[in-house]
């Protein structure tokens, strides 16, 4: 695989100003994606994984959202510094995004055809007929039969899986080099999820497109990611190649998460290993390690200092003061 970095995000910090106080959603995150690579971002709801992606695409509603600092270098351009016009040319054309709920993410009062052809007009300058032809081809590519007729249909006339296919077709319209998939299968049934994962994998190979796949499901990640980034409370806590991460989790959170998962292919153990407590309150400015209150390996330092992301093995990074394998401080 090529090692050229397609996008590199550095020290991204995003906050939301709410009447109850500041929500510290993303707290200095850095990561990169190579061309054609699939990066999976894993974390529980509210860990900042979606906000990170929306931030560097500048899709955060401002106010209340605010990107406090950071850089997002896409092909040498800092997405957080360029003009809105330039950004419009990148969004949808270079970087496309699909969302969790295909029902609400499609405009209910516009036809599918109109919604797919919009970026074709805007970014590629295709005329009506060309755009239509391309839309039909796209729909066929994502596995929607009878595409020509269905262009005139409205989103509510499609099933959930079909809608997500339409979303994917829309995202692929301008052949982007990066696709951000924000939990695209969470709202779908397992059999439909399998279809969609298969579809994206196929397209990715076909188009040599990089993918950032946001999910909370460690099972999905195992099947399709090249690299995995685990997030917790607005921080990256661990990052590694997928096999390395599953074989050798080095952050207590990853470790606990993997042991808490029941598996369809295994007989039952006595009890599941559970993580105590609940995810942290993002209204409080993080102090010390955010996972410390739920962690079984805590040492004194954890309460005072937030551990940085450190290399623990080749291409394997974790943010922890302790070595999970021994329980001893590093």
């Amino acid at each position, binding site marked *: 695989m090529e090692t050229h970095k397609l996008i590199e995000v550095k020290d991204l910090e995003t906050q939301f100003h709410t009447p109850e106080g500041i929500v510290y959603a993303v707290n200095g995150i850095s990561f990169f994606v190579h061309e054609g690579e699939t990066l999976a971002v894993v974390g*529980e*709801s509210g860990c900042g994984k979606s906000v990170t992606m929306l931030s560097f695409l500048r899709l955060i509603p401002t106010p209340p959202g605010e990107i406090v600092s950071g850089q997002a270098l896409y092909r040498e351009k800092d997405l957080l510094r360029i003009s809105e016009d330039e950004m419009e040319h990148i969004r949808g054309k270079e970087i496309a995004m699909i969302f969790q709920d295909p029902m609400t993410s499609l405009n209910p009062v516009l036809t599918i055809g109109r919604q797919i052809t919009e970026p074709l007009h805007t970014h590629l300058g295709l005329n009506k007929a060309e755009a239509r032809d391309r839309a039909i081809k796209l729909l066929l590519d994502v596995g929607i039969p009878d595409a020509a007729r269905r262009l005139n249909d409205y989103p509510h006339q499609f*099933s*959930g*899986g*079909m809608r997500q296919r339409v979303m994917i077709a829309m995202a692929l319209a301008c052949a982007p080099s990066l696709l951000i998939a924000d939990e695209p299968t969470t709202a779908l*049934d*397992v*059999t*439909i*999820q*399998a*279809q969609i994962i*298969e579809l994206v994998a196929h397209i990715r190979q076909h188009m040599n497109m990089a993918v950032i796949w946001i999910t*909370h*499901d*460690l*099972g*999905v*990640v*195992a*099947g399709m990611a090249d690299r995995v980034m685990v997030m917790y409370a607005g921080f990256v806590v661990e990052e590694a190649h*997928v*096999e390395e991460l*599953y074989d050798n989790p080095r952050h207590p*959170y990853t470790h*606990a*998460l*993997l042991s*808490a*998962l*029941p*598996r*369809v*292919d*295994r*007989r*039952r153990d006595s*009890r*599941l*290993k*559970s*993580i*105590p407590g*609940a*995810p942290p309150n993002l209204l409080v400015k993080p102090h010390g390690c955010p996972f410390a209150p*739920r962690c079984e390996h805590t040492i004194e330092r954890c309460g005072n200092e937030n551990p940085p992301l450190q290399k623990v093995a080749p291409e394997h990074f974790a943010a922890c003061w302790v070595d999970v394998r021994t329980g001893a401080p590093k």
Partner: protein
Amino acid sequence: MSTETPLVQVTDLKKHFPITKGIVIQRQVGTVRAVDGISFSIARGETLGLVGESGCGKTTAGRTLLGLYPSTAGQVDIDGHDLTHARGKSMMEIRRKAQMIFQDPYASLNPRWTVNAIVSEPMRVHHLINNEKDRQERVKELLTLVGLSARLVNRFPHEFSGGQRQRIGIARALASNPRFIVCDEPISALDVSIQAQVVNLLEELQDRLNLTYLFVAHDLSMVRHICDRVAVMYLGIIVEMGERDEVYEHPLHPYTKALLSAVPIPDPRKERARQRVILTGDVPSPINPPSGCRFHPRCPVALEKCKTETPVMKEAAPGHFVECHAVK
């Protein structure tokens, strides 16, 4: 399976929702066959998993089972009470013995009520404890039992996290000392790190209070973990049912096979090596289910007779039932 009479016995239960038209004079123009004739029994202390994709009727089945929806046909017998004919006092008796835990921890607790009011409601309604003070004591006990601090009795639901709310929901279900609890996707709305907590609690409670569960879920991994037996539903009917390991390791129905193969496994090597049965198309509408075998339009091994003939449930192995023409 024990030889004593099962706690719950369901026979040919049906729940159809009429689709009506007209405002002054309503006439029925169609039927949603949400549950279309399911039979099973659950022994005391046992957990039966009811799995299937969304729209297969599993939630409706759970609710009809408790009489929350009036059933269209069939019989439900809970601990000797015939639910389909129960009225008034005997209905209240069933309500006391059979409880439910809900999917959405946000929607299933009245946001205007304190934890105390929520958890004590069953005791108040069933006149189990009529003294307000004793009731509060019992509420505190129950909160402790489900792992919440008794200090929190006067708090409101919105002050709790999802997992804590689900514990409150469980405490409420336990308040009337039920024998049987329908768990309607109790963990699907929770974060991964919380799911295990709640599942462990449910198991712990079952052991301690000798509870019987109907565990309705779409998460096959979790069902495998918690259930003793599993029933797989598709479009309102049970297509396969049997002991857990038997079903997971030797699935017979093509739908079960597809379903199991679609569940991702959190192990990169294994996951990449797997052979998937990818089903085409979506689940058809329960308004006009396909003729013959309901699964035949999506079935990779469909036979000609599947289109016309409805298969019957057969016992393919001891305790392992399946409804498929292709299974001998």
